[in-house]
């Protein structure tokens, strides 16, 4: 279905590395994502009803109380798990794994049982409770590469698959090799991030090597924690995410070891 014939795309495996130590919680990624992916405008009501849609959201976690208080920021989005719990439970194959390691959501197949949302440990799936609407003039901004999701279906981060498609198509047309750190290819959030906390790439390529370095815990330049900070979120669930998080460095942290 989604494999593109006659190319080497199928042996790419898209993934992301998120450096929590760099994330400042500035929300640039959130708005970039909404603009790129035609995410419906989250009106006040959507927040009070707890139905706001943010394919990537910044979670803020408190530590301690005033005066020695800390707040941490954690970008959360679809982890595109290799063993995605959301996939087997969908009765109509609306969500499945494509040949590039992406967990894709076929909106028009979805019938809205919301089973996948229940079974996503990362709560990265969002349901269109209302019909998304825009004022006439604002529709001019909607991205023609991305469909508008009607009410009654799930949606979630796609790693901006439309960008991957467009740039691979272009590279095919020009007969050039698709290089992975390429702004036309990487998702809107990654391009936006002012501190470069997000890094997108091919886990079978350079990013994969870097990620391995982080996960195995060696490498690193001098004493600036470069390698060894990698971990998968909720690893003990065995979902095998394609997103690698880099640990927060905190002088006052009591050392805790990652599970698993």
């Amino acid at each position: 279905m989604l494999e593109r014939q006659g190319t080497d795309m199928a042996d790419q495996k898209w993934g992301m590395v998120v450096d929590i130590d760099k994330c400042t919680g500035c929300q640039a990624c959130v708005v970039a994502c909404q603009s790129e992916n035609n995410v419906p405008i989250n009106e006040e009501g959507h927040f009070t009803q707890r139905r706001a849609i943010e394919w990537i959201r910044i979670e803020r976690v408190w530590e301690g109380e005033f005066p020695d208080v800390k707040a941490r920021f954690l970008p959360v989005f679809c982890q595109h798990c290799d063993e995605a719990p959301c996939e087997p439970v969908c009765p109509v194959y609306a969500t499945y794994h494509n040949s590039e390691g992406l967990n894709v959501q076929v909106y028009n197949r979805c019938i809205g049982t919301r089973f996948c949302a229940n079974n996503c440990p990362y709560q990265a799936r969002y349901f269109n409770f209302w019909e998304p609407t825009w004022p006439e003039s604002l529709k001019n901004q909607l991205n023609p590469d991305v469909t508008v999701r009607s009410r009654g279906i799930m949606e979630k981060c796609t790693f901006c698959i439309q960008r991957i498609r467009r740039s691979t198509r272009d590279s095919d047309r020009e007969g050039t090799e698709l290089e992975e750190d390429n702004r036309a290819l990487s998702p809107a959030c990654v391009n936006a991030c002012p501190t470069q906390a997000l890094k997108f790439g091919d886990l079978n390529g350079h990013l994969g090597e870097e990620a391995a370095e982080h996960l195995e815990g060696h490498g690193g330049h001098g004493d600036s924690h470069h390698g060894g900070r990698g971990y998968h979120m909720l690893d003990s669930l065995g979902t095998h995410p394609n997103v690698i998080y880099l640990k927060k460095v905190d002088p006052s942290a009591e050392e805790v070891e990652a599970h698993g």
Partner: protein
Amino acid sequence: MAITRRQFLTYAGGSAAGAVIFQACGVPADELLVQSPVEMPEDMVSGLDNWYATVCKQCGSGEGIVVRVMEGRAKKVEGNVDHPINQGSHSVRCEAGLQSLYHPDRIRSPLVRVGERGSGQFREISWDDAIGRLSLQLKNLSESGKSNSAVMITDPASAHIGMIVDRFMSVYGGRHMGYEPLERTGLRRAVKQVFGQDVMPDFDIKNTNVLLSFGADFLNTWGSPVRYSRGYGEFRQGDRKRGTFYHVDSRFSMTAANADNWVYVKPGMEGILALSIAQVIVSEGLGDLDAARQFTENNSLDLDAFEPSKISQKIGVGAETIRHIAEDFAKHGPSLAIGGGATGGHSNGLFNLTAIYALNYLVGSVNNPGGVVFNPAPVFEDVPVVPRVDSFLDFQRLVGDMKAGSVGALMVRNADVWHGLSDSSGFKDALFDVPLLVSFSGFMDDTTSMSDLVLPEHNYLEDWGSDIPDIGPGYQVLGIQQPVVRPFFESRGSQLGTRNFGDVLISLASELEIDLGLDAENFQDVVKNSVRELYDSNSGSVRSDSFAGFWNGLLQRGGWWDTAAIADNVSTIPILSEPQDPVFGGGEFHLIPFTTTGIGDGSGASIPWLQATPDPISTVTWQTWVEINMKDAERMGIEEGDVIEISSSVGSIEALAVPNPGAPPLTVGVPVGQGHRAGGRYAKDRGSNIYAILEANIDSASGALAWASTKVNISRVGRSEPVSKLENTYSEPPRDEEQLIIKITPLDS
């Protein structure tokens, strides 16, 4: 088959009717729906796109952006990779430019007021008519010799627009004032005094090792956040030792959350803390001693009065902490001290800032890598680079004049004075004594809604222009702003729709028969002409053998910059202003207004994306809320969502309580920018305006408004409403029991 004309018409009519019917069913944006049950629509790439480089005018920091355009419509904003300020990244507000471009409530043509002033009833008129009316009034004024009673208030306008405004007003003989809601006149004065610079310097966070910031929310809204964030990323995890970051603030801001140590200091005591740090450095013989001697003697300053143990009680910071910071700051250089935000918004703001910035001299990080880096002289002599900003004192004078009836015409561009000026200034009443209020704003903000005549300007994405960043990267930069799409209302003809502000001034000048001395009949040419000298200089990022080629290069690269053109080293001795304690009004709680990630100082309030952007700390959207300490809240029986009345001596507003564990006791933080009387469907009558109740305390040294020095009383109204936050309501703050965020200590500690 042959279709007769009649048949054709019937078909056409039929299809038209069909279209109407289906429209009536309100199928949403269905032209974008792809109905395939197996393919992700994203797999079907449609159409070709172009990316045009221009400059973001959403906020003052002048980021370079590229805009994705398909079929003549702007679709996506991304950072311009070449641009020195943001190097490809962008902030929330750059993105939102798209919605300001396609905002449903944009002004579609010149307007003249028909109802009461402020009734918001306008009538569309032609541009000729509008310019005629304005020029008539100006003529009358100049003929009656009161031309200086014409006042133009703009946002801090620099580069060519600034030039034209200045020229116009000076040639005409009127006054030009620059307006900034949470003004930074104090900051500019401090920079002048300490560094002897007219231009704001750049902070080399990227290479600094110990970062000590006072009150400046520089990762979020203060200064040039995107540029600072780029540096911060490297500062944290670059090819270098991980830096240490102390943040001194009396509010737990997003920047404070990212600091390794947030040091709470009592409001307005930052300067004293800075001097105390200086005292430790000097007394322990760390750092650059003769620099220290210089400025102590020069300012006849007795540092020992600031020995930590003496002042620690007063400023609420432990003596040990002060020593530790001082030693770290002095020993593990390169170090950098930044100050701003609320620190400068006190009655002793100028003292605070000067004291803070002076610290950089002690550790020799002035105009050095990892320290404060000066910006060079402007690109052009005749084009102002320092935006004109007038202090609150000046505006109080203006209000005086207005009351006295000596203001004949008030022209406003991009400056929402009505919303931003505190009631204590009396501006709102005085406005009714002004015979003519003209707005050049392309959007119905509060001030525009009060005005008599509206001459709407283009949205910046439709418009020509230039930008010289207020806070440069340390070398000369000129951003070029080009229209990425045709003007949205172009179809309404030349007499309706919007126009470039510069063009309007030019045609106004020709109406008034005054000569602005620029040999160009429209603003585009003004820019074009003035960049000729860059072409001639044949230096910097864009070079070409033909001017046409050069111009194209400018447009493609989104501007011109010359990394070689850096500031020459100046050795000045910082002038500290008189150490003094902050003065506050009456009231139980310190009120600390703050700008939010989304709507900033209020200029973004009309844009839904910005309204819906969660505040990083409280994750609240769309509303005005009160950050209040949890224990205080407990004491006063306040729970999340309770409507709180905040009352100062000036007035009172209502806001929703959001207790949070980071808020210091007896301090309330309230976001600015809501509570508009106009501003379109997304901003009108939403939340409440904290500016309105700020007391008119003034930093006597700089004349700036001490906007953080108001003290308020808060009380429960008894009502309570759901808080529209991304996070769910909690009784206990979430603690991350499952360690989603795993923390490790740095290797060296």
